[in-house]
């Protein structure tokens, strides 16, 4: 968890540069920079409702990031997690719409369905990778589009609102399926608890179990891992399954904890954003929660920007992207300088 001095320095440089670029962008669209920053803060932490919204954005993001940590540990690029979130949401939606009974039962069933679909969807790129050596990036993105297509099909087809087949979403789910919220806030304690549990579980899984250790070996050197007696294909498949399960959980929370209906953008980009979170965190488990919170705050806060200053909320995405890009580039630059210095020292 401790970073070397050089790494702190590159992180600081990246942060400063990112802030600078953000300010520059704001100036370019004729927006008052300081006012914009104040609105960002207000928009994410300025009031109870805002904090609630930020936390509800944090939940799916950090759960997805936690899942991605597992697949990254196994050396895999599960970009398809975004699709697994969608499928999880679809599963939960189906339960929410069809299962009747006491609320706690429906909720549990929804989570179960979400997890099941998420796992199933993740096992497709998993199998394609382990059996057919198809790179999981392509199969993952492909299945993301298929899942997205499926969601839209459901929304304008079988699950469409009575009489209006619009892409704004299905009818709201029966209230029995809604995750209980606090007062008038959109905050669900269940969701937050689930997120915390997910992060802790992944942290324990990756650092404290034999399973996590095996994944680490497979991710770094499958040949040696095999010789040590580790079943490499099985390990990879299970990593996909775990990430799919967590994606399914994120999708379930989105469906029954936030939107309460199925909408085309149900996955909210949290899967892709989760990859950024993990990259920025340098694959360190301890950092994904705070970084996810930071990203969630930017996301939620930027809606204020669009409301008050007519700045497109995509500024959030720009800031997040710039920050991660800078970290990658400065890290690479630092490594290059070290390499050159070492080469010179030898001659």
């Amino acid at each position, binding site marked *: 968890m401790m970073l070397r001095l050089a790494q702190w320095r590159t992180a600081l440089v990246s942060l400063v540069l990112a802030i600078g670029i953000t300010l520059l*962008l704001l100036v*370019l*669209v004729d927006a008052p920079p300081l006012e914009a920053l104040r609105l960002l803060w207000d928009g994410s932490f300025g009031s109870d409702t805002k904090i609630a919204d930020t936390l509800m954005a944090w939940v799916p993001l950090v759960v997805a990031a936690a899942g991605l940590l597992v697949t990254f540990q196994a050396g895999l*690029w599960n*970009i398809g997690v975004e699709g697994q979130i969608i499928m999880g949401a679809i599963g939960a939606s189906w339960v929410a719409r069809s299962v009747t009974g006491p609320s706690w039962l429906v909720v549990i069933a929804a989570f179960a369905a979400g997890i099941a679909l998420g796992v199933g969807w993740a096992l497709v790129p998993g199998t*394609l990778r382990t059996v*057919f*050596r*198809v*790179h999981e*990036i*392509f*199969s993952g*993105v*492909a*299945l993301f*589009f*298929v899942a997205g*297509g*499926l969601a*839209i*099909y459901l929304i*304008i*087809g079988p699950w469409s609102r009575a009489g209006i*087949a619009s892409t704004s979403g299905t009818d709201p789910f029966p209230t029995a399926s809604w995750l209980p919220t606090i007062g008038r806030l959109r905050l669900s304690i269940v969701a937050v608890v689930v997120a915390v549990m997910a992060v802790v579980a992944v942290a324990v899984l990756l650092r404290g179990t034999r399973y996590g250790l095996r994944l680490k070996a497979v991710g770094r050197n499958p040949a040696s891992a095999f010789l040590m007696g580790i079943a490499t294909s099985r390990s990879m498949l299970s990593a996909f399954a775990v990430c799919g399960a967590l994606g399914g959980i994120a999708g379930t929370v989105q469906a029954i904890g936030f939107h309460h209906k199925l909408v085309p953008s149900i996955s909210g980009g949290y899967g*892709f*954003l989760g*990859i*950024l979170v993990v*990259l920025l965190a340098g694959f360190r488990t301890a950092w994904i929660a705070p970084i996810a919170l930071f990203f969630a705050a930017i996301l939620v806060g930027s809606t204020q920007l669009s409301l008050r200053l*007519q*700045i*497109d909320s*995509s*500024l*959030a*995405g*720009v800031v*997040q*992207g*710039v920050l*991660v*890009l800078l970290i*990658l*580039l400065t*890290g*690479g*630059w630092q*490594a*290059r300088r070290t390499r050159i210095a070492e080469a010179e020292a030898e001659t």
Partner: protein
Amino acid sequence: MNELATIVATATPLVYATIGEMINEKAGVINLSLDGSILLAAMVGFAAAVASDSVIIGFLAAIVVSVAIAALVAFSSIELRLNQIAVGFVLFLLARQLALFFGDSYVGQVGPKVPAWDIPLLSDIPFLGVVLFRHNLSVYGSYVLVIAAFFVIYKTRIGLVLQGAGERPEAAFARGIPVNRLRLLATVTGGALVGVAGAAVSLDQIAGWRENLTTNLGWIALAFVIFGGWHPFRVAIACYVYRGLLFVAGQFQEELPEFVQVLNTLPFLLMILMLTAVNTQWFRRLGDNHPRWRNFLASDPPSAIGTVFARD
């Protein structure tokens, strides 16, 4: 006939993007930022065209942007030895968001379009004339590109060397070929074509700017490069057939709105099928049994794709 003409025209941006990506993948560099690059290039191209009231300036601006992104991908792989996938993916998200951010003020604006130009003699040919030669320079450019790409890669010295660099960089290097410089060149060329693709959308096909302007064009292009076996003709055929299918689906929009959704996922299903099929014996033998068609039927990626080539 007019329908076919429409299909050919609407496939133009896809053809540019796919051939462009094919070129840098041939050299071993994968540009995962494609979808974001195209969107950003489309937006910048449109904005520049509106500001200068010139289509040419628009295209040039689009090219500058996409080349910059592609150069960044190449630089981070070659000099910084970063993972091409990581950098490409981050750039995908970033470029996309940048496009949305700056493009906001251009939604709904009307900009200059590529002027129509029927090619004098050729457009009078019955049937083919209508389908192929009554469009504009942007569309004609895509024809030239496909043929040029085939010619350059398979018939010229530099094309052969490029293939070598992407297939086995150490061997190419041992022959005195500047592998990394070639990779940079290929990536920049591919990037420029991506820019043209973006401009072809915002200044021609769907003139204007809006949020989902290029609808996954980049991901489809990435898929079709694989599906097309890194061969310009097969890749182009895939693009045209796909647009044809979309067109057909569009006709049934009212009755079967879901069909269009299925079609959107078609390129990816095809790609997965292709990637799986590549590993089967049957397909490999197909290429071996028909030597003349070998290049056309090949389906293996350049072996060194996505790798960092460091001489030590």
